[in-house]
């Protein structure tokens, strides 16, 4: 049962991250390939505060959100001038730089390579209540994202995505929308990171590798761009599928690569035959 709650928690965390990433790719038109880097920052912020500085875990959550949002804000300013390709490549580079720096000089429990020993508040030590809190925060994120994309802001954002030149002609700055949505997305990724800590017994940078960014891409591509529902369906279905594989009788050494192969095939299939994924309302940009 505990395992079941654990998987649901993981699904929730990835749903938040998928929403965050879909907001920038599907609605903002910014091709990010390294959003897992923000997940890492959120996770490390929360874990460091809690494990090394003994901050109550509840407080680490908003702090992680703010720290990651600030990093996101700072990171996009120099990248705004890049066109889609080079932008994507830069975010990938950023992801790898973040994880590598964390690996070399990141905070760690003395004597170890990473952080462990999360000191959770009493309520959260029970796996069902932990799930309840994570699920509630996920639902909140879904609601917020939904309201955001339905609002005039969301409309202007989509317009900017479609025609950056024309949005300027109606007096709105494309740059402002990009920076805003990227910062909001960063904050959400930070939230996902903080919550992600609670599902890990050991937090170290290898957890946030490029493979993770790749999986995120598959979740979103499969679920569908510019779709709140897609950001929920993608991770849910694929994480469940991944777990089913693990229980399907394959030896553990094999199930990892098999899953990766299937996901890669799925991504290729989606790109060639159905770029809008399951329920997406937008295509990966030209």
């Amino acid at each position, binding site marked *: 049962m505990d395992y079941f709650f654990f998987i649901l928690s993981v699904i929730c965390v990835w749903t938040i991250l998928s929403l965050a990433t879909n907001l920038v790719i599907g609605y903002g038109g910014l*091709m990010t390939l390294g959003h897992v880097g923000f997940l890492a920052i959120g996770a490390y912020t929360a874990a460091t505060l809690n494990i090394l500085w003994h901050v109550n875990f509840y407080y680490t959550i908003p702090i992680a959100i703010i720290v990651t949002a600030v990093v996101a804000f700072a990171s996009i300013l120099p990248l705004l001038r890049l066109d889609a390709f080079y932008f*994507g490549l830069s975010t990938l*580079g950023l992801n790898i730089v973040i994880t*590598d720096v964390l690996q*070399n000089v990141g905070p760690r429990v003395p004597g170890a390579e990473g952080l462990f020993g999360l000191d959770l508040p009493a309520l959260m030590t029970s796996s069902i209540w932990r799930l309840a809190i994570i699920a509630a925060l996920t639902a909140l994120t879904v609601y917020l994202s939904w309201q955001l994309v339905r609002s005039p802001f969301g409309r202007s954002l989509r317009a900017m995505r479609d025609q950056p030149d024309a949005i300027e002609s109606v007096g709105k700055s494309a740059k402002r929308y990009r920076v805003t949505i990227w910062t909001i997305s960063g904050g959400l990724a930070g939230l996902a990171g903080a919550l992600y800590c609670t599902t890990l017994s050991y937090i170290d940078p290898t957890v946030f590798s490029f493979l993770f960014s790749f999986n995120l891409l598959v979740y979103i591509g499969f679920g569908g761009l510019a779709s709140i529902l897609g950001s929920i369906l993608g991770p849910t279905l694929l994480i469940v599928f991944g777990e089913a594989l693990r229980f399907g009788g394959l030896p553990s050494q094999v199930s990892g690569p098999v899953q*990766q192969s299937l996901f890669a*095939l799925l991504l290729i299939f989606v790109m060639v035959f159905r*770029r809008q994924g399951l329920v997406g309302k937008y295509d990966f940009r030209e």
Partner: protein
Amino acid sequence: MLQVLISGLSLSAYYALLALGFAMIYSTLRIFNIAHAAVFGAAAYSFYILYRIFGFNIWGSLVVGVAIAAIFGLLVDIFIYRVLAARGGGTFSIFIASLGVASLFEAMALLFTHGTPLVAHTGSLLPITIGAVSFRPLDILVISSVAILYGVLFYAIMHTRTGLEIRALADNHTMAGVVGIDTNRTRTAIFAIASSLAGLAGILTVYDSGIVPTTGLNLLFVTIVAVIFGGTRYLFMGALGGSIVMGLVTAFAGFFFPQWVTVIVFLLLILLLIWRPQGFFA
């Protein structure tokens, strides 16, 4: 110091092989072909299997390995990229598909080798020492082969009909179609040549220092920085120049700050993209 320089130049040769092919595909077709890493790996593993497991002749295995690379690269283009484009996909979708191919190959390689490094050379590659530096005959062979290949290919690009078509594509894709160049046939030539180069790099690597499933991708990322550094205005000079720079950078970084090599490479990438995306040879 001089030793680091020598190893840097030797590394440059490998990047140069990958860079030329990658830059060729990118400058003519606007395809950011991450699957190039898979082509590298395919040739490497094939060579290992032929040479070490089946015991075939080394030169025969080399030729077959390169052929496999060329065919593999071509198949990816024909069955994935061209189909994707015909179905309305753009450059970014192709890029993501190529990521998928690279990831698929890495996963399959992981599946079959369990991540164990495979090295193809038997016996030891003894270095020759002159004064303060040692180098191996293999390094000399690699560097001179790359130099010869560059020369031959440069001549071919400048003086053959196919080469002309390739250059026309690099200048202007749509116009080339209009003046009657069969872009599909030229595209085939481009992928065949580029993939062969990548395959050769893979074989040399597995022979010399061995490979693991992620080797191709790691090398490719450095190569990408080299290609961006060199710019695509002058294909050969850019690829060569960028490769030499990155070879030296990785050698020196690897010697002085071994854990920071990746960070340095990717920071360079980001800085290049922000400040000089057209490269330094434009």
